[in-house]
């Protein structure tokens, strides 16, 4: 690992995030807290927005005004 580790492609990163979101929704749907699903969906949309905005340098400072 003395050289930089290979980075996943952008598509791979997005697919991984979608996989995580899907796993989270599935876990909540299966468990005793299905009422959390709508809230989590809203939060995930906000989360996706945050991840996107963080990657856009000139917007990043404003995230801290929202959160």
């Amino acid at each position, binding site marked *: 690992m003395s050289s930089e580790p290979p*980075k996943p492609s952008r598509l791979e990163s997005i697919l991984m995030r979608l996989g995580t979101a899907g796993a989270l929704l599935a876990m909540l749907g299966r468990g005793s807290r299905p009422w959390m699903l709508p809230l989590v969906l809203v939060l995930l949309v*906000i989360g996706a927005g*945050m991840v996107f905005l963080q990657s856009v340098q000139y917007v990043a400072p404003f995230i801290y005004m929202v959160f």
Partner: protein
Amino acid sequence: MPQVTLGVSALYHDAAAALMIDGQVIAAAQEERFSRLKHDPSLPVRAAQWCLDEAGLSAQDIDQLIFYEKPLRKFERILSTSIATFPRSALSFPRQMKAWLGDKLWTRNRLVEAFGVRPERVGFSDHHRSHAASAFYSGPFERAAVLVADGVGEWATTSLWRGGPAGLEPLGEVRWPHSLGLLYSAMTAFLGFAVNEGEYKVMGMAAWGTPRYREALDRVGRLLPDGGFALDLDHFSHHWHPTRAYTDRLVALLGPPRPPGAPFALLDPSASAAARAESQRHADLAASVQSWLEDALLHVIRHAHQRSGEANLCLAGGVALNAVANHRLALEGPFAQLFVQPAAGDAGGALGAAQWASFGVAGRPWSPSRFRPDLGPSLDEGRVADLVADLGFPCEALPHEDALLDRAAQDLLSGQVLGWVQGRAELGPRALGHRSILADPRGPDTALRVNTRVKLREPFRPFAPSIAEEQAALVQLPPAAAALGPYMTVACPASDRLREAAPAVVHVNGSTRPQLVSAADDPRYHGLLRRMGEATGLSALLNTSFNLKGEPLVGSATDALATLARCELDAVYIGPLRVGRPPARVLGG
């Protein structure tokens, strides 16, 4: 093809990486030892890189990377707690969501990006399963009950397992927000110490007090007939407040909290009677929470014994670092033998995650062995000599073992305080003679010398001794704690002889937290202890971790030299080199 497993703990505190190949632990280290940030929680990229370098591997060789807990389950807990405690959680909710939605929820992405492994090779253990595995698969028993107690993992705060040839079987758990660790941490904050750091200080302060607040604490932390316990949540706010762990009701019950940094007047003859009374109240509070924790743990393990039907017990989780409680468990508990994972905190979770994947999932055969915590970086002695010469530190090479040990013993006997950097660094919070500060424990002013020159430790906390195994009678280790001797994970009564001869390593209540050193485990360190014994009759040394206040343990020789330059240590032994204090110009004079 060998099976390469990397265990990783991170993103809360004490990040660490552990590398196993075909079921053998090759290397394990905490990120803080590389980044030099105490309790560094960031992904342990440097620690992992060192582990791979040690094995001559690269990221592409990792067959499985196992994260020590399940972030999604943790997120579920945080979310549902926030909803259940709304509107009180309104303050902490945005903060939590920012941390989770922006970062922690996407741990798989972060692991893949940081470590360069394929996404399909990343797996997740459970927080308590990782702790349980770190205790059982490092322990000396074929089969055992395993108790994990910490602040909180995903949901579990205390969990019971049965370990055996079939793996680790969960037997029961107590769930958030009811937590032994978090009650102790709330009281740590109440007593003005930093949570996750000051718990040792509460344990040390407890010896100065009497548990006269026990009844009050019994009301806020009740033991249940099923072997569990429940907190009265009106008194605690760890589950909804962003920074404060207790409510005004706890203040009404126990009186005003101790302000951080308040002086400890019980050791100050010039202090006023009022100041002494206030310090006594603080010590009584510490004694009360310590006594509550011990009784709660005893209650839990008595049920664990019945439930598991096992004779021996392994312990892990941050609560298992409470060496005083471990003594009560050994002395009064029902188990024949105890083993405590020395890296019982979350750093040990990295090791446990790798062990669970290797033995629990892959079903690899496993047999008990004697655990060695020296799994970290070793010293490149050739490079050390060059470095010392470059920096202009006075240095003496002592390639002959006898000469080295004679010289070190002579230094110690003349009252010097030494750094002792030998072999591989220890995993976990205890320095066990590999990254230690040593002093002759005899004499009334030893603790003061070590404290004022190097450690700046609170005066109410004791130092601990390393003792050559053949002089184990210097301490009264209960038979059930025999397996804990090498690791400083149990406090026990000191013998009269140790108490009289070496007060610096005996606490005010006559207890001590020993490391028993055998020639087989550590011949060089044992040789030094033996020489001390030949000269003084006492084969013992004061042993404290080699770090300055607020810094992590030293890892490399460079860290040791940097520390030597910034404190009043007399010399540091790095491998076979005796490095003396640098001349003033090296110090920038």
